[in-house]
């Protein structure tokens, strides 16, 4: 009883705070100072049409590096938790008959989904999208593969190698920035290229492709571990 009263009290205080914030909130009519700087200079300094991309990859590149590290850490801890015993590893999952429609559709769609994911992260500096979205789309393709054939063996070594190599390459491209440009993760390692074309914005397409491969491999790894955990009982 006391617990319920306390919960109600906490929610009420929080709701009162939110109500006050809501009442004093005024819709903004102009950008804040930092955002104004980004909006004015991003196209000139970074050369990317998508300002969100130039913030994520260049201005706040360290945040992205840290975030990719956090995702790697969660994937590792999940692998550790869902580790199977030796005898479970070789069992196959008993499942109902997968629908013929799903199997045929997955054969046609999975390559197209992978291609779309690659398109999304290569064009991250021009259109909405980028490494995280492209990686998630690739992982969706892996999920469709697993749905169509629950006993599929996804090669763990390939996933681990893609993940490690793209993670190291991300840092190495960042280090190139120190040598050839202003600092770590600076994208002006070569010419910026013509604004609005695919090969522009210096290192941004390269870095975002590595981020996309890494995120896709990590999420695929998590999905694969959950699928395998269905074997033990």
């Amino acid at each position, binding site marked *: 009883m006391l617990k319920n009263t306390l919960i109600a009290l906490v929610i009420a205080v929080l709701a009162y705070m939110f109500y006050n914030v809501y009442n004093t909130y005024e819709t903004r009519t102009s950008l804040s100072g930092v955002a104004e700087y980004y909006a004015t200079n991003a196209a000139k300094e970074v050369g990317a049409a*998508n300002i*969100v*991309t130039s913030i994520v990859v260049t201005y706040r590149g360290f945040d992205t590096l840290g975030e990719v590290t956090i995702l790697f850490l969660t994937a590792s801890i999940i692998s550790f938790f869902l580790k199977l015993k030796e005898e479970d590893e070789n069992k196959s999952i008993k499942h109902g008959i997968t629908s013929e429609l799903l199997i045929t559709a997955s054969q046609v769609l999975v390559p197209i989904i992978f291609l779309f994911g690659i398109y*999304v992260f290569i064009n991250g500096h021009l259109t*909405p*999208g*980028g490494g*995280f*979205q492209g990686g*998630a*789309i690739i*992982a*969706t393709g892996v*999920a469709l593969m697993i749905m169509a054939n629950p006993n599929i063996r996804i090669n763990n070594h390939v996933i681990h190698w893609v993940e490690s190599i793209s993670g190291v390459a991300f840092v190495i491209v960042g280090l190139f920035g120190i040598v050839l440009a202003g600092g770590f993760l600076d994208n002006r390692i070569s010419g910026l290229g013509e604004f609005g074309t695919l090969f522009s914005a210096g290192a941004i397409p390269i870095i975002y492709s590595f981020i996309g491969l890494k995120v896709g491999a990590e*999420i695929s790894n*998590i*999905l694969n571990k*959950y*699928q395998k*955990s*269905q074997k033990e*009982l």
Partner: protein
Amino acid sequence: MNKEIVFIIIALILGIVSLILALIAIHNKKLSVAILAAGVVSLFASVLYLLMAAPDVAMTEAAIGSGLSTLIFFYVLNKIKKSNA
């Protein structure tokens, strides 16, 4: 009709439906209904991001928040159901 007014009407509908779905997700006894309701809340949030001129965030939310999260929830639910049977 004015674009702003259409956006406001869509946002109001999305908001009311997603609040109802959030309450269903908390209150419903069936776990599968709760998980699906949370997934739909996430999907409506992605439409709301698109209305608020944030296409990058909308793509991420649609792919990760409502797609892959729901999938992982169902893996766990399947395992629990198999164990209980």
